[in-house]
């Protein structure tokens, strides 16, 4: 009875796993097919001949390498900068007492409900006045600080006992020193979680880079891919190779840091 139930369960799990994987596996398969092969009836699953022509085309003809570079640069830059900015602010909200702290924090939390889309148009005009349209800063600056990141760090930093900070202060450590040598190391788990979320969020972001980057040399991978998808509808295999290029890096990062990522979600406090 138990083994029967067990095998039924396993079968069900495997069926779901196959369904989940199928589009992704097919994407990889089709990306290795020569042009035109995927558009036949019945649709082939395995490539008849394996070829790298699609990938070569992406990098030589379509210069996707440039977009790959942009995506890496922007994701890393936004992650590093926002980590510093948010952790400083989160720490200040957690451990400094100043007039207006509670109402200010409440205001920030309350404004999290405002969808980012509201700010899009004026933000575009503002960045335009600053001459930042079609520059990396156009993506980095709006991503510099996030209320959610500040909130996350603050919640974590509040659990650090005050006595620890007092002791450091007694030893003559400056405020910056305490932040750098005491707070940051203690906050490491939450920093890692936040870093992963920021990195993946920036990598996968589409709407904002689509608006801000007007020159194809500045496109991120998702924008370049959407651009290609509009242009090369007929070239299934090429599109699949582009999709593999876009998805693979985040999957690798995820596989490497799965534990922190899932822990972040499990904490139940993390929004996308």
């Amino acid at each position, binding site marked *: 009875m138990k083994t029967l139930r067990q095998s039924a369960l396993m079968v069900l799990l495997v069926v779901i796993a196959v369904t989940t994987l199928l589009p992704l596996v097919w994407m990889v398969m089709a990306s290795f097919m020569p042009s035109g092969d995927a558009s036949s009836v019945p649709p082939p699953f395995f490539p008849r001949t394996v070829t790298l022509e699609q990938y070569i085309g992406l990098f030589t003809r379509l210069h996707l390498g440039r977009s790959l570079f942009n995506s890496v640069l922007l994701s890393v830059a936004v992650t590093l900068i926002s980590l510093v900015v948010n952790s400083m602010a989160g720490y200040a909200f957690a451990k400094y007492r100043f007039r207006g702290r509670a109402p200010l924090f409440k205001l920030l939390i309350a404004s999290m409900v405002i969808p980012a889309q509201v700010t899009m148009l004026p933000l575009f005009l503002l960045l335009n006045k600053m001459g930042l349209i079609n520059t990396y800063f156009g993506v980095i600056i709006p991503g510099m600080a996030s209320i959610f990141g500040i909130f996350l760090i603050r919640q974590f930093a509040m659990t650090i006992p005050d006595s620890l900070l007092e002791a450091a202060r007694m030893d003559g450590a400056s405020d910056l020193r305490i932040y750098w040598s005491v707070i940051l190391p203690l906050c490491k788990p939450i920093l890692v979680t936040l870093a992963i979320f920021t990195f993946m969020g920036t990598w996968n972001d589409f709407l904002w880079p689509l608006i801000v980057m007007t020159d194809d040399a500045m496109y991120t991978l998702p924008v370049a891919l959407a651009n290609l998808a509009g*242009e090369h509808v007929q070239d299934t295999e090429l599109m699949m190779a582009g999709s593999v290029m876009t998805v693979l890096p985040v999957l690798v990062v995820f596989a490497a840091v799965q534990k922190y990522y899932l822990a972040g979600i499990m904490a139940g406090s993390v929004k996308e």
Partner: protein
Amino acid sequence: MRAVRRNPVAYLAVLCVCLLPACSGGPAQDTEIQFWAFGSEGENVKALLPAFERQHPGVRVKLQVIPWTAAHEKLLTAYAGESTPDVCQLGNTWIPEFVTLKAIEPLEPWLRRAGLDSTSYFSGIWRTNFIEDVQYGLPWYVDTRVLFYRKDMCARAGFPTGPRTWAEWDTLCRRIVTAKGGHERYAVLLPTTEWAPPVIFGMQKGSLMLRDRNTYGDFSGAAFHAAFRFYIDFFKRGYAPAALTDVMNIYQSFGEGYFAMYITGPWNIGEFSRRLPPALQDVWMTAPLPGPDPGRPGVSLAGGSSLVLFSRSPRKELAWELIRYLSAPEQQIMFYRITGDLPARVEAWQDSALATNIYARAFFEQLKHVAPTPTIPQWEQIAMKVQDFAELAARNKMTVEESLSALDRDVDRILEKRRWMLNVR
């Protein structure tokens, strides 16, 4: 490095310094001309640029290819973001919009210096670039819509050279879809994602589509109404598929005989030659569009693209050089040979490649009967509305009357600003 490690502020500073050069986009040694072109024109114009760069040492042309579906919004975004290129291909119907925005430069002084005027060009096409007595663009290639058809399928239905009138066309379509083995087969491909077919039919019936100095919609008017009904009947009678994803690959479907006719432009001469298998090269042909009345050919769109100079360009002299280069008869012929896009320069038509091209003949005929769409900035937005309501009616979600009056209402709202601006001026 130790100081950096200890001091977070120093760390931040280093980080910023490291990022800065990467952010400035890198300096260019050569003078770069930013050139935007769309779709297959963009893909193909690449081949013409090296020769230009050889003629102008120290000059590089930075070409950006934008899909047609994103071209219009990309251009407006660039205008709003003050990042327009130096030279751009611009659909003839878009020129009024960019003139109103003062985004593009009048070409008169340059034209005079280069000794170019309307006599070198098709007059109907030249006029689309002429806004309030000023010339803003130089026609690059001409585009009008004609009928591409399968000779074999049309011959079997009794019209070996294609239909000449709306009535003939209707008969031909009926015979094709009712023929034996005609299951899962259509007569015409009229993509509901294109505004051109209903608009062309409207112009053929003599509709101006707008009224009162182009400040109100006139789609419910008798002329457009009749044309629209004709258009919708293609779908109602099963002559044309209302869903488009069926024919994701137009060339393949045409090759399979999934449909026999397609209203499209000159760029597809090249695409059909390239993408259809050799065995099928002899079975397709082009014909001027059928018209509503016997004895009179149907009009078509005065389309195509012109090359324009953006007002913000800091290197207009060089940019003009590029435009002049691309407009020279030799480049026009070359471009025609690569793309099949028909040259705007009349001289170029004497080239043997074009004079002997059997598919180009229909276009030459059609170009004598072309009319422009209303030359107002809002046309693109109106055209999209036409497309929206045409699709609704094609799929039987709205009656012809309902969709046309809804179309007029939406168009009137789009033109509200125009009415106000005309009064302010």
